[in-house]
């Protein structure tokens, strides 16, 4: 594992997400994701019984885990930790064996028609230019936030403070880098 120079991840505010999928299309356009595939996706989860219903909309993607099973189980070293704190795939040494797909608890990967495994890169090519990810830049509700967790700004901290925040499948020990502000929070929390 190379030495971490950054620790990028996301804070996702599900209170405001409307599930419009702008993030999905922005990613497809930015990253030339092939037809029929996507690197991020939207979940609209409704619970309860009429008329006592609750909803959460989430824009999901690779969680860029700090303890990533995909990296552990990749036999060729194609899946690796990047120095910016994300998980990346080196296509040239990926054999498309799918071990990473079986290991990933978040179902974040797919086999690209060209034979390698593909997933969200957290727009590494944009971050390197000082830009935010395509999805973060375009999201109409500003549900998505790109955060360097090593150098969190006051704004980043305020976003999480006093709110019901969770990470997905923490019990798997993956240390995911995506933090979710629950839709259960009252407005203005």
């Amino acid at each position: 594992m190379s030495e971490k120079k950054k620790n990028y991840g996301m804070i996702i505010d599900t209170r405001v997400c409307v599930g419009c999928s702008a993030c999905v299309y922005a990613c497809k356009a930015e990253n030339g994701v092939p037809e029929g595939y996507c690197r991020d996706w939207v979940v609209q989860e409704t619970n309860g019984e009429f008329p006592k219903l609750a909803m959460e909309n989430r824009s999901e993607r690779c969680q860029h885990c700090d303890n990533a099973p995909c990296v552990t189980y990749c036999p060729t070293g194609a899946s690796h930790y990047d120095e910016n704190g994300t998980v990346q795939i080196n296509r040239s040494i990926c054999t498309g064996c799918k071990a990473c797909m079986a290991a990933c608890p978040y179902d974040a990967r797919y086999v690209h028609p060209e034979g390698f495994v593909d997933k969200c890169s957290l727009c590494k090519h944009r971050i390197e230019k000082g830009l935010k990810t395509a999805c973060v830049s375009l999201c109409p509700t500003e549900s998505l936030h790109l955060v360097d967790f090593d150098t969190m700004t006051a704004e980043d901290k305020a976003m999480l403070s006093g709110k019901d925040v969770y990470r997905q499948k923490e019990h798997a020990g993956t240390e995911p880098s995506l933090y979710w502000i629950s839709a259960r929070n009252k407005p203005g929390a």
Partner: protein
Amino acid sequence: MNHGTDFSRRDFIKISSLFLAGSAALSTLPSGIVSGLGSNPIEGKGEKIVYSFCEHCFWRCGIAVHVSDGKVTKITGSEHHPLSNGRLCPRGTGGTGLLYDPDRLAHPLIRERKGGKQYYRKASWDEAITAVAGGLYKIHEQYGPASIAMLHHGFGVSFFKKMFSEIGVNKIAKPSYDLCCGPARQATVLTYGYPSDTPEGFDIKNSKYMMFFGTHFGENMHNTAVQEISEGIRRGAKIVVFDPRFSTLAGKAEHWLPIKPATDIAMMQAIMHVLISENRYDKAFVEQHTVGFSELWDEVREMTPEKAAAITDISADAIRTVAREFAFHAPAAFVHTGRRTNWYGDAMQRIRAIQILNALVGNFKMPGGVVAFQKFPLVQPPAAHEHPAYEKEVYSKYPFFPQDEPSNTIASHEIVQQAITGEVKALLIYGVNLTETMTLGRQAALDALQKVDFSVAVDVLPAEVTGYVDVVLPECTYLERYDDLDNGRAFRTPFVALRQPAVAPMFDSKPGSEIARMITDKWGLHGVFAPTVEAGLDKKLKLVGSSLEEIKKRGVLVMPETDLYRKQGEPLNLNTPSGKVELASAQLKAGGFDAVPKYTPHPEAPAGYYRMLTGRKPMLTFGRTANNRFLGDLATAQENEVWVNTTIAAQHQLTNGDYVHLKNQAGIVSDFPVKVKVTQRIRKDAVYMVHGFGHTSKQLTWAYKRGASHNQLISKTDIDPIMGAVGFQNNFVTFVKEA
């Protein structure tokens, strides 16, 4: 009726794929958009960003079109345009899917009849323009200008409007008035003296309490409003949603009130009743700035929360709670007028009830309340020719149809009816897929298209309507052309926006500006338009101290924020007959209508049938996006579903994912089956399906046969007798299982 011309039935023509873009479109695509094999972020030579505005819905957000090697690689939100603020909904990003649609119309087409067979012939532009100019001229000579009508949807129509005004044709309809924005527009005129606009005049940004009746922001991605509502949620603003369906917006609400469909006016009256009977309304505002309070009280006095509860299926306690909270948060509270509000033929009065609620709490021109955004004051250059009196003529028979909208002088259903009766003999259809537009349902549209003597469609795609006309003119997309300047949107920072081409027109398509010019030239009317479209834009911009060169850089000129709020004690000087806010309208009374909105019961569903409600998906805008492969790539975008309450589904032995045909109360069965979504998210007395699916044109190779057509199942319409909007929610459906 046969008018002595050589009239024969206009058969539907399946446009030959030879006349469509086909593989030519695909070969021009950057890899990764359609080839399916793009694997790297698209970066190429000659990269540039062209600032323009979107045409995938009426909101007209600013877009940044990224061009590389002469190809559009992606579209993002313009950071300069106040309506997009750097952000964009899926449809905006999906512009590439329209631009590179292999089904695009590629050539002008002329209908031919030979030996009982009808077919389209590929024509040169000169032949097609000769046919259109000649066809319209002949009808104009024989029957006069009122026998020609235009139906339009889309910003590029301005050139055709100008073209027609040169020969005195002024019978022009935009179906969106009848179906969408008309009732709110006219209700605001009748209550406050000015038309409501886009974005709607609500200070969402500063509001603490927002009520919505049936309008579902988040599913309709009206970018700016969705951005401001999200900001409201972060600030702690409360949202209240009255909707028979648990919409996305209802999912964000403090209170979701699953109101019985068609009872909204009773609910609004009950809220008024609580505000007045509990002395929670703004007395000073009502006394100083409104007329008709006692008439209003006489009308709502009997509508107690208990009485309304029995009508609306919402408890009296909940009604009181909402009314009290609304008053508590006022004036930073509002009831939104919504869009696509024409449900039962009394939509205008329903929206008047909303605006009266707003007036009662005194939120007019207050932070967080009702506001009147301003438009950029663009100076119109003097017309090339004198415009005679007909320019001011309004053809609609509805007494409170707008008198001040030159691009909308008659309801679209009136044009359909006049085409059927023979009063209208020629139609120019710009961007309206008439058979799938909720104007009077599909059959009436087909009758109208059959009946007229001459018809032209200007379109980008081989939509169903293009199979029923005499001449098809392929317009290029909004990404390949200039249009007129857009100062039609009012906002806190008034602005004027430019549409400019990111790439040259593909195939044999042309911009509307050129098509209209060719037609006027053929009529021998020269000098109607500026020598070039660029010169015309530059001239207009010079009048406000700018230039085409300047606006091209950012695609928009933005004014500083205007003062939206009233000062204490300042008279409102409204443009109503009384000069005040009209709680009771003497104009309406004089016209034989209710001065104050009344609740009228609407028809109930026959046993085993359910009221058919409609709406949209966030990544689609009905016909505009139906065939868009880029947007259609997500599973959620690929078909519509019929939402059925869990209990009702069990009664009909339906399980989630089943495919059924729908049958309406008149026995019409949907052409195609639709997927059942069994859900807790809807009342038992209604079903819901997104409009714009179930296309029958095989030339729309992507959209064909996906889902079921909502439009096909409309066989009853309720026209608002006051202002001509079309309601269509008194249609009921049941399920026909696959054999």
